[in-house]
């Protein structure tokens, strides 16, 4: 069996006693199953079921569904990885696919795209206890359930991911604690206190978050100007002109000199102006499309 590090994670350069390896010029297409460590320098297509550690060497390419006890990736994998113990992506790993394992380690330098799902019962309990502790985060917590379900519904992980948010959602609907109105609630420094129940007209006083569409565009810098949403109070002298003010002033159709009280005017004016949706500009390098199977 491969030598383990002190964290009980398989290390990439452990020497296996039983040497099964696919050489660099070899290509296996089909189903591979076994109970010993496997080092792949070549190409495997299809499915891999291993009761031991799968090492994907830097020149190895796996285009397969992998079910193994451990997976250590230093090469290229296009396909979903399921491990019973741990998945390790080393610095030279290039993985496109979903990872599912109780323990996952992505080392600096690894490139990965896909979903990560750790042991389902732990995550379920984690989300349930976390949601219970946040008394006034109830309506906010429902947003991630919608988002995680809408963004990607992969058949392999769909049951896992949807199962986790389901108990959270039931917990939230029972107490039906809503967030207080945006401006009426006095700021409290005690985080444990739940505010008075309030049902906002939209049913969710947080801005409903539509599923983020990550369309690749040029590299992004996070917005340096404050995001102009109604919750933000911008202390600003009326003489300062900024583009955020332009739409507001146009909507109000009043000369700027009449705004004597800028802070109050900001709050009042924003309610009339169509809210500027600041969609987070996605970060994209490269030209490949981001495709999601919804």
């Amino acid at each position, binding site marked *: 069996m491969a030598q383990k590090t002190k964290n009980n994670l398989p290390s990439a350069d452990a020497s296996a006693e*039983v*040497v099964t390896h696919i*050489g660099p010029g*070899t290509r*296996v*297409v089909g*189903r591979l199953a*076994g109970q010993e460590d496997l080092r792949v320098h070549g190409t495997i297509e299809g499915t891999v079921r291993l009761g031991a550690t799968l090492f994907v060497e830097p020149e190895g390419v796996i285009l397969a569904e992998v079910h193994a006890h451990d997976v250590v990736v230093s090469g290229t994998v296009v396909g979903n990885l399921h491990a019973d113990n741990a998945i390790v992506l080393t610095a030279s790993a290039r993985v496109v696919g979903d990872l599912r394992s109780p323990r996952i380690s992505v080392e600096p330098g690894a490139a990965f795209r896909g979903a990560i799902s750790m042991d389902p019962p732990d995550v379920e309990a984690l989300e349930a206890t976390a949601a219970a502790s946040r008394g006034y985060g109830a309506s906010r917590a429902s947003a991630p359930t919608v988002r995680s379900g809408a963004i990607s519904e992969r058949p392999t992980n769909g049951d896992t991911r949807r199962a986790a948010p389901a108990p959270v959602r039931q917990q939230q609907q029972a107490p039906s604690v809503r967030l207080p109105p945006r401006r009426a609630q006095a700021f409290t420094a005690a985080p444990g206190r739940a505010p008075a129940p309030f049902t906002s007209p939209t049913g969710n006083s947080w801005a409903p978050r539509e599923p983020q569409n990550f369309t690749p565009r040029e590299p992004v810098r996070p917005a340096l100007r404050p995001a102009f949403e109604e919750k933000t109070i911008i202390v600003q002298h009326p003489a300062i002109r900024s583009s955020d003010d332009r739409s507001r002033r146009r909507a109000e159709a009043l000369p700027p000199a009449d705004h004597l009280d800028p802070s109050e005017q900001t709050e009042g004016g924003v309610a009339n102006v169509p809210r500027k949706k600041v969609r987070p500009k996605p970060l994209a390098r490269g030209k490949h499309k981001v495709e999601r199977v919804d």
Partner: protein
Amino acid sequence: MATTVIGSSIVIDGEISGEEHLVVHGTVKGRINVRDSLVVENGGLVEATVETSSITVNGTVNGDISASERAELRPNSTVVGDIRAPRILIADGASFKGTVDMGG
């Protein structure tokens, strides 16, 4: 030259192709097409059509073998299938059932 080794607990159901030596301790079903030599070790089982340059069998092969150089069946080997190779060596103790074609 690198070698591909299929361990004794490995079962491959599909097609192996490559340009390297291949040593099979486990089970391979399907097709094998290696440009270099193929060795089926004792305990190895190959249920496949084999195309290789030279093949050495210590285990079991059920399938047609086509070797461009030579085919060798060692003692305790079992081969069921047709062999086509310019040079064939069947050792004493090997069991073989099939046709042999040494023609060019």
